[in-house]
């Protein structure tokens, strides 16, 4: 138990510490080597489940998964494409594949506390006249899937939009 006069550790210099991150967008990252896959399949969940089950059995990891009225979309790493295609061919669903994609992620510590961020992102994409293949959002990031050739342009536009160096 510390008594009066007990030697205490040197206090942390308070002025130098940042205790809470600045609110707002903190970074933009780019990940390439991705492939966007659209599988035409009816909205019936059981039919969709068959697709996911077959891909799971083949050990294919999926992300940016979205349900659309007549299709499901997802993204795979390019080294998983061959495996994914083989599975989907067997299931006989029409498939559209867009190779050479990149995911541009806009990072923030609490995205949902920053409602204006989505508008700025949409503006930046629109101004660059880039086709956005897929969008995903979470509490700490907005993910934008674009063609790899557009990724640099999008990333720079977003950096400019959010005042990042």
């Amino acid at each position, binding site marked *: 138990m510390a008594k009066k006069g007990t030697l205490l550790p040197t206090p942390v210099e308070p002025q130098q510490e940042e205790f809470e991150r600045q609110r707002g967008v903190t970074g933009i990252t780019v990940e390439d080597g991705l492939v966007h896959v659209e599988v035409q399949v009816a909205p019936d969940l059981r039919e969709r489940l068959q697709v996911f089950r077959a891909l799971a059995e083949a050990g294919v990891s999926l992300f940016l998964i979205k349900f659309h009225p007549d299709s499901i979309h997802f993204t795979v790493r390019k080294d998983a494409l061959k495996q994914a295609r083989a599975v989907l061919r067997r299931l006989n669903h029409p498939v559209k594949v867009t190779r050479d994609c990149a995911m541009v992620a806009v990072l923030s510590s609490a995205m949902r506390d920053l409602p204006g*961020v989505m508008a700025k992102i949409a503006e930046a994409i629109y101004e660059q006249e880039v086709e956005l293949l897929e969008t995903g959002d979470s509490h700490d990031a907005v993910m934008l899937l674009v063609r790899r050739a557009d990724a640099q342009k999008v990333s720079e536009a977003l950096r400019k939009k959010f005042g990042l160096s």
Partner: protein
Amino acid sequence: MRLIVQKFGGTSVATKERLLIAAQRVVKAKREGYSPVVVVSAPGRKGDPYATDTLISLAKEIDPQVPVEARELDLLMTCGEIIGIVLMAQAIKVVGGYQTIALTGGQAGIYTDGNFGNARIVRIDPAAIWDALRNDVIPVVAGFQGVTERGDLAGHGHITTLGRGGSDTTAGALAAALGAEACEIYTDVEGVMTADPRLVSNKARVLPSVTYEEVSEMAHLGAKVVHPRCVEIAMEHRIPVWVRKPDSDHAGTVIKERASDLPQKMFRFTGVTHLPYVAHFKVHVAHQDDLPEIETEIYRVLGEAGIATYFVSKSRQLFEFAIVREHLDRVRHLLDGLTIPIALNHHSRLYLLTLTPGSVAHRERRRMLMQLRPKVEVLDAPVEVTTNCAIVSLVVLNTREVPGIMARILEALVDANITVLQVADAQHSVSCLLLEEDMVKAVNVLHDKFELHTGVGQQLRVLAGAAD
């Protein structure tokens, strides 16, 4: 010296009995050789006499039509914590015979920006706390509050509040500022649980250990154990956070190393969270090429109104998003009748968003806009709204690396005849948007499917093919 920060929530200090139990925790730590720094919330919960919402209503009820200034609201809201610290300081003195000092956020050196109601901590000067500790006095600090400093646009010395989860944030920030060995969050559950025990009854388990990322994900997706701002600060400063119940012998949950610190690429299923009261919007657009402009305009309108979106998605002629239902009336008001012009090469299009096709208001708007023809093509953009939705999420350490998660989630939900409206995946979670009536069932079937009730799901597993 072994320094710890102990934070007690509103229910822990709501009655004399609970207050004494909480004080015993502080005394126990002191007797074990720790130097505790105590952080206290306002006594009670929603509806209780000194709870934040009760204090706010005192001012608002004078005339609900006249808004109360944000600065004044902050002054009022901080009263609850000030009552809390005086009571806790007294209780510790009575239980343990130790000297205590109650400190407001400002007295404890917590400086914030001037964003009243949701201020951010910019600096901590813990001189008063160190002074107390040097003199063997236990500092009891008011959570949820700070003070502006010289140079802030709002002026010097204004009392501010830190927004939701503010007392947790105070505890995390003080632990960081003091270089504490740990931060203990005392709450009304025994730790971070695999699901809300009110939904899955006796099947929910206390997680002995989770990473900062997992608990942050859980908190953002609806779990109400510890606020993500506290976790974020603890993660930055690598301070372990314990979540415990004051009157329980259960060891609780320790929140510690980052996922990236784990020795190999590992994954595990952490828990199932739920977020009720969500509304889902679908905007139908006649021409696919016009979707980006419509999407941008809707985001702009919602952004200006301070409304965040979830589950954003678009396909050829459809743009979807979800919102928290408390904003439903405002979003309806903002979108119904919104006109969005699209400039084309030789003419222009005007989209008229409508949530109420066939209504008199819509017919009238349309009739007026039709007068712009033939120069302007007028098109309806019907908006479908599903008002009674919920989000149920499976939190997984390293989701993206694990194949088959979506298949297993859908298997469980399909077998339970639950309709999934949309899905979203992130680094540490997969979320499903579904009807609110299915929410409890969905939480239960996912909890079972991923063996969270047996503890098997939480075992760390190495990813197939992962190298050291």
